């Protein structure tokens, strides 16, 4: 059950995941169909940490479920490790570890029993299984809790056990759907540190679906997904560089009014997001200076920074990643 050693000629190997012209529709009531994925093509290389970034309902969870062989696409093809996901689901499943948004642990079983159950499902047993369980419990620092019921564990610990469970059969590919759901920021950070440590220990390809830009920032490459379409795909740095320049964020008592005055006076068009004004500029320093000179009395705070993936998403789709307030 061990993964093959990484070959020296990485470029010759087929991608871990190849998705071509993938479309998916959910059948709803009264023959209404909802398009969840619309003609997506992309390839994920072996060893990559790959992000799927999009707001809720963008289709990224559907994509994860198709990769996990839970849904069969009507159009297009998906191959995992060179194997067609639709025609050979069991072969794909053996190479796959999945941690879904809702935890797949049984609260009435102990940590150890949960892992043993997973092992048996994957055809592992006996001493090799017990060794692997101990190894993962150690690595995720939950060995001391091995005899405790999962329902008594904290959210962060559960998440670690969940990861250990997903990796028990040493999959080549790990799928994570919204891994930070229900975790507080400190635990979230710890989760990502664990993941980083893990990728050093085992050759692992990881696909993360998230609506949080700071999670996507940690990925090698990010696919922006909106309304089931692939909007952009590149490294986080390249995506942000494309925006051109830096981002100015202005907090003001009356953002709308200030935006109007800035358009009138300076001829630049700020976007309003979450009650703040945003502007991109190649010469952000100079623009910020003239903003302060012209509207200093109306500005509560002004921030100058590198663009985030949220800025990129906003520029590409005109939509924000997280809908904090309902749109009229």
């Amino acid at each position: 059950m061990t993964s093959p050693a990484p070959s020296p000629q990485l470029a010759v190997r087929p991608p871990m995941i190849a998705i071509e012209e993938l479309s998916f529709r959910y059948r709803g009531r009264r023959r209404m169909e909802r398009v969840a994925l619309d003609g997506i093509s992309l390839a994920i290389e072996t060893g990559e940490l790959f992000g799927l970034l999009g707001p809720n309902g963008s289709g990224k969870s559907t994509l994860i479920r198709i990769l996990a062989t839970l849904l069969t696409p009507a159009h297009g093809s998906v191959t995992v490790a060179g194997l067609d996901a639709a025609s050979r689901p069991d072969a794909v499943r053996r190479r796959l570890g999945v941690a879904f948004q809702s935890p797949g642990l049984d609260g009435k079983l102990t940590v150890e029993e949960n892992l043993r159950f997973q092992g048996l499902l994957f055809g592992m047993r006996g001493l090799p299984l017990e060794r692997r369980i101990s190894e993962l419990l150690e690595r995720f620092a939950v060995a001391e809790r091995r005899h405790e019921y999962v329902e008594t564990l904290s959210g962060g610990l559960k998440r670690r056990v969940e990861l250990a469970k997903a990796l028990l059969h040493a999959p080549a590919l790990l799928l994570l759907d919204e891994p930070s759901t229900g975790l507080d920021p400190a635990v979230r950070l710890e989760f990502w540190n664990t993941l980083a440590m893990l990728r050093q220990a085992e050759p692992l390809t990881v696909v993360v679906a998230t609506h949080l830009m700071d999670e996507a920032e940690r990925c090698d490459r990010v696919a922006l997904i909106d309304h089931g379409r692939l909007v952009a795909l590149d490294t986080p740095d390249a995506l942000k560089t494309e925006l051109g320049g830096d981002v100015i964020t202005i907090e003001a008592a009356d953002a709308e009014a200030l935006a109007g005055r800035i358009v009138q006076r300076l001829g630049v068009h700020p976007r309003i997001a979450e009650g703040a004004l945003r502007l991109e500029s190649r010469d952000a320093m100079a623009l910020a200076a003239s903003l302060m000179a012209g509207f200093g009395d109306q500005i509560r705070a002004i921030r100058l920074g590198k663009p985030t993936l949220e800025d990129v998403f906003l520029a590409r789709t005109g939509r924000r990643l997280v809908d904090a307030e309902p749109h009229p």
Partner: protein
Amino acid sequence: MNASTPRGPAHRPRHGTEHPTENGTEYGTGRSDAARRRAVFLLATWSLMAREMLRFVRQRNRVIGAIGTPLLFWVLLGAGIGRSFRPPGLGGSMGFMEYFFPGTLLLVVLFTAIFASISVIEDRNAGFLQGVLVAPVPRLAIVLGKVLGGAGLGFGQGLLLVLLGPLAGLSYGIGQFLGAALVMALTAMALSAFGFLLAWRTDSVQGFHAVMNLLMVPMWLLSGAFFPASGAALWVRVVMAANPLSYSMAALRHVLYPPMVSEGLGDPPLWAALLVLLAFTGAALALAALQARRASG
């Protein structure tokens, strides 16, 4: 960079190179491969079944409820109606307590086996089922594991009640005991598979309870557990003949009581009753497996 042309070698031939590790493990020929598949099937079935039992034992309220309810039924109904009741066609040779005993067994098996299938809904809502469905396990093994788990619980409790029977003045030999065990095992499988079939499509526990009350209570009442078919109106007798539980009931009476009881009540022969039960179980399992293969969570 253009949004519509993502980086990376996205346009490879569809039927490209297989991974090197693939050869030998996937398409290995001969007995070893068949043996491996059988082992995977059995391991998965066994572990799902064992989990079901473990969960039950760890929820004490479930244990108390499942054993207490039918015991209460038996004692209260038997004691209350016992004196005035005489099953028709038996010439007063048998009290209600005795007549009601197989019915009580059936009730225990029914309650536990059916309500065990609620775990299908819970597993789905909790996300646990998804984790099972992404394992490289035949869907039939998943169905069989869950069904056997629920059936095992119903069977175990029915057995417990049979063991308690002598305490209530019933007497039977080893043959009767084993016969009752066999019939209860079959009944538990049939009901558990039926419960699984219905639970798979239901997304709320409340909805499942509603459907179960609608189906299960009449099924039990019209199984011959409460009153014999011989004295009933024609349409009731037709419904009772179509009810799979009637055959469990008939089979239980065959194995527990002397032949004259079954003859007096007009029950079908034992072999026919067992055959109907087997057919029902097989059909429910096949449908459940088919259903699990089509829509995966």
